[in-house]
C-alpha cells in the first residue's frame, strides 16, 4: 500500500506529464484555424474581384461592402488570436540534476540521512505541482485563444457567405 506521500508524488507527476503533452496538442491544433483563415482570404479575393465598386450607391452593393468589411475585421481578429496562442510562452520544467544534488546535500545536513528520501520526494512533488500549475494556466490561455480564433474565422466565413448570397442580385441589377 503506497503512502500518502507517494500517492501525492505519483498524482502530481502524472498530471504534470499529461499537461505538458496537452501543450503540444494545442500547438498542433492551431492548424485548423490557420487553414480556415487561408480559405477565407481566398474567398475574400473572389468576392472582391466580382464586386462592382462603381455601384456603391445601390443598397445591395452597400450591404455586400458592409458584410465584407465585418468579415475582414473578424478575420484580422482571428489572425491576432492565432498569434496569441504561442505568444511569449514560457515552459517550466522540474529542477536540474545539479539543483537536486544540492538540495539532497542540504537535506542530509539539516534532517539526517533517514529523512533524505522522503524530503526529496516532497521536493519533487512540489516541483511537479508548480510546473503543472504553470502549464495548466498557460494551456488554458492558449486554448482560449485557439477557440476564439476558430469562432472568429467561422464568423468571418459566415459574413462572406452572406456576401456571396447577395452577389447574384448585385451583378444582375
Amino acid at each position, binding site marked *: 500500500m503506497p503512502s500518502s506521500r507517494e500517492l501525492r508524488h505519483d498524482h502530481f507527476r502524472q498530471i504534470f506529464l499529461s499537461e505538458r503533452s496537452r501543450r503540444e496538442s494545442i500547438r498542433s491544433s492551431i492548424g485548423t484555424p490557420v487553414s480556415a483563415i487561408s480559405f477565407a482570404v481566398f474567398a475574400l479575393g473572389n468576392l472582391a474581384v466580382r464586386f462592382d465598386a462603381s455601384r456603391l450607391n445601390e443598397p445591395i452593393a452597400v450591404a455586400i461592402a458592409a458584410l465584407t468589411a465585418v468579415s475582414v475585421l473578424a478575420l484580422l481578429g482571428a489572425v491576432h488570436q492565432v498569434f496569441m496562442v504561442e505568444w511569449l510562452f514560457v*515552459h517550466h*520544467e522540474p529542477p536540474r540534476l545539479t539543483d537536486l544534488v544540492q538540495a539532497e546535500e542540504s*537535506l542530509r545536513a539539516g534532517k539526517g540521512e533517514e529523512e533524505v528520501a522522503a524530503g526529496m520526494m516532497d521536493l519533487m512533488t512540489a516541483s511537479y505541482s508548480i510546473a503543472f500549475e504553470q502549464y495548466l494556466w498557460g494551456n488554458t490561455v492558449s486554448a482560449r485563444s485557439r477557440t476564439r480564433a476558430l469562432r472568429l474565422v467561422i464568423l468571418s466565413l459566415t459574413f462572406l457567405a452572406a456576401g456571396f448570397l447577395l452577389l447574384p442580385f448585385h451583378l444582375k441589377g
Partner: protein
Amino acid sequence: MLWLDRILTRRRMQDCFGPVPPWSHFRLRPACLQLSRQERDMQKLLKLPVAPRLTMADEELAILIDPAERRAIETD
C-alpha cells in the same frame, strides 16, 4: 564572424544556459517573480528545508533560465 558561426554550427549547450539579454528582462520578470513566489509558498506548505528550484525555458530566445539567472532577472 559570430553570426556566421551561428548559421554553420549547432547552438552550443552553454549558450542555452547563458545570460538572458537585458532587453528581455522586462518581459520575463513577472514570470520569474511568480515562479519564485510559488517556490517559496510550496516550501512553506511542505515544510521543506530548501525551496524547489525549477528551470524555465523561453522559446522566444531559445534559452534555458536556471534559478541563479532568474534571481538576476528579478533583482535587475
